[in-house]
């Protein structure tokens, strides 16, 4: 069975979606969904364990080996992202089963297919297959974004959809160019070909740049980041929570493409140099300003997601194992905390009547556990000790100390951290402390156990990832080391007789 482990994180949600489509009422769909989420977590955890053996897990779909067939190529990074997705999805789904899933049609199958898309994007080793899973992921996200209805969602959805459709077109152009110059679509093979490319270098560079442009759109790099706050803030809380992983899909794609294919090739090595770090830093500052200016908590959460995306985008340009390792830890923790924020925002909003999540004085409400959860999440999000947010920042600052742009990166990350801390203090103070005595809080039922459990799981990630920082960071280091040793990746995917792949010259 372990031979098939690599594909389970993709097939489990797919099968669950089929069952959910095939019949049963909402409660049946919930049961299936939660069971699939649990199975998905188990499968992904198993995958992490298998991948941590150090050897690539290569799964040749249809028995067709790379580069001819599509292969799933699972290394430590892919496995970790798979587990992260499964965990996040589990929490978001648990939250959604408390009633959000009933606010529109087909929530459950769409949710499972969204998981399938994200998992596929992380696990596949083929660039066109990556495109397909991007589309699976995106269409599901379009539909989930609209779930629950309302003009705000439609409005944000339009911008999100159109922009991503333009991105998909660009993705195809990039893939066309890549195939048209290298004659292959498998990432390992692309990497291999790039290393020995003699002519068509300019076109290959163009292809690489366009590919990166696509990924930066998903990762919300600054001039392409405006969609994110609107879309994430408009989405329903559990949907937004799941969306947090989607910027990471772009970031991990950049990391992987850069580490495996571009950095080792002389013609491509400078593709991210010079522009990515400044834009990433601008993104961080922009997000920090956005957080400062945010008037609603869910927007605030979205800005936090953007800030963490910008922070992470500092890493790929360096193509350095230690920086990647630190970035991975940061990625893990910022995903959970970002997601927690969206859920908390909704729970808080429900308790504040018409004021909802607006960051202004509202009715007094008594929810000490909610306040505590918000406080813990806020500490993590602001990068304050002792939780994972601080450790992530510490690790990044520490490894970026000697980077070329080190002082600038430090200055921006610290300044942004300061602004976010100030903004969070203000938001928390207004939401929880500043009360309008003449407003009575709405009568809200106790928080359903599914919702509390989901929030607890996500918020607990901050302390837990701090407590177990060493194993997580060590795993991240191993993953980064593996990522930045592309030879092993190429050998793993293509086998040792990779130079005997039959190629023919066309036209």
């Amino acid at each position, binding site marked *: 069975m372990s031979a098939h482990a690599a594909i389970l994180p993709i097939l489990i949600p797919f099968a669950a979606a089929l069952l959910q489509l095939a019949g049963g009422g909402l409660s049946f769909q919930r049961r299936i969904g939660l069971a699939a989420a649990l199975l998905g977590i188990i499968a992904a955890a198993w995958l992490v364990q298998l991948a941590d053996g150090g050897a690539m897990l290569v799964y040749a779909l249809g028995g067709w080996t790379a580069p001819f067939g599509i292969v799933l190529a699972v290394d430590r990074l892919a496995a970790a992202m798979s587990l992260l997705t499964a965990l996040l999805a589990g929490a978001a789904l648990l939250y959604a089963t408390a009633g959000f899933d009933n606010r529109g049609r087909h929530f459950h199958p769409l949710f499972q297919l969204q998981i399938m898309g994200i998992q596929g994007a992380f696990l596949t080793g083929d660039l066109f297959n990556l495109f397909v899973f991007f589309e699976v992921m995106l269409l599901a996200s379009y539909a989930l974004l609209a779930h629950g209805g309302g003009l705000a969602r*439609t*409005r944000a959805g339009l911008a999100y*959809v159109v922009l991503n459709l333009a991105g998909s*077109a660009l993705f195809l152009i990039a893939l066309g160019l890549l195939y*048209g110059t290298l004659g292959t679509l498998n990432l390992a093979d692309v990497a291999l070909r790039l290393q020995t490319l003699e002519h068509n270098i300019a076109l290959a560079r163009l292809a690489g740049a366009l590919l990166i442009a696509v990924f930066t759109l998903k990762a919300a790099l600054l001039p392409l980041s405006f969609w994110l706050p609107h879309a994430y803030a408009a989405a329903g809380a559990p949907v937004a929570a799941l969306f947090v992983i989607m910027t990471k899909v772009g970031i991990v794609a950049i990391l992987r493409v850069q580490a495996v294919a571009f950095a080792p090739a002389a013609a491509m090595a400078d593709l991210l140099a010079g522009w990515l770090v400044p834009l990433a830093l601008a993104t961080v500052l922009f997000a920090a300003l956005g957080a400062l200016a945010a008037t609603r908590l869910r927007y605030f959460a979205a800005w936090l997601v953007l800030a963490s995306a910008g922070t992470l985008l500092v890493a790929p340009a360096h193509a350095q194992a230690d920086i990647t390792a630190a970035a991975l830890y940061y990625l893990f923790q910022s995903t959970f905390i970002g997601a927690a924020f969206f859920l908390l925002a909704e729970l808080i909003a429900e308790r504040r009547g018409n004021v909802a999540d607006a960051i202004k004085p509202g009715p007094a409400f008594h929810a000490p556990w909610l306040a505590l959860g918000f406080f813990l999440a806020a500490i993590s999000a602001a990068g304050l000790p002792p939780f994972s947010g601080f450790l992530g920042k510490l690790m990044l600052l520490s490894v970026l100390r000697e980077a070329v742009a080190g002082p600038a990166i430090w200055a921006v990350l610290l300044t942004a951290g300061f602004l976010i801390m100030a903004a969070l203090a203000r938001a928390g103070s207004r939401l929880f402390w500043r009360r309008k005595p003449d407003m009575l809080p709405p009568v809200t039922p106790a928080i359903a156990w599914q919702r509390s459990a989901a929030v607890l799981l996500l918020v607990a990630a901050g302390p837990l990832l701090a407590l177990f920082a060493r194993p997580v960071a060590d795993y991240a280091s191993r993953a980064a080391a593996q990522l930045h040793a592309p030879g092993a990746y190429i050998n793993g995917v293509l086998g040792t007789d990779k130079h005997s792949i039959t190629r023919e010259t066309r*036209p």
Partner: protein
Amino acid sequence: MEAVVAIAIGMLTACGVFLLLRARTFPVVLGLTLLSYGVNLFLFASGRLRLDAPPLIQAGAAYTDPLPQALVLTAIVIGFGMTAYLLMLALRALAESGDDHVDGRMKP
């Protein structure tokens, strides 16, 4: 022939991009349609142009590159799905805001 196809691709892209930048949902959809024609042609062209050599295996025949064709097929179908979705979303925006502006703004 390459130049002809390149001009066609450029033309479709330019028209698609121009329409994509309009302020109403309908031209945007139309622009995406044109753009995806251009993109599909481009993706197809990555296997180079070949006349009268369809990839249908017969003895002793010459074939064009089948892989980009398969990719374009996938791209066409996905593009169709996306267009359908966008149109439905545009209708929903129309129903909710009373206007067909891409920013979903309410009809004044």
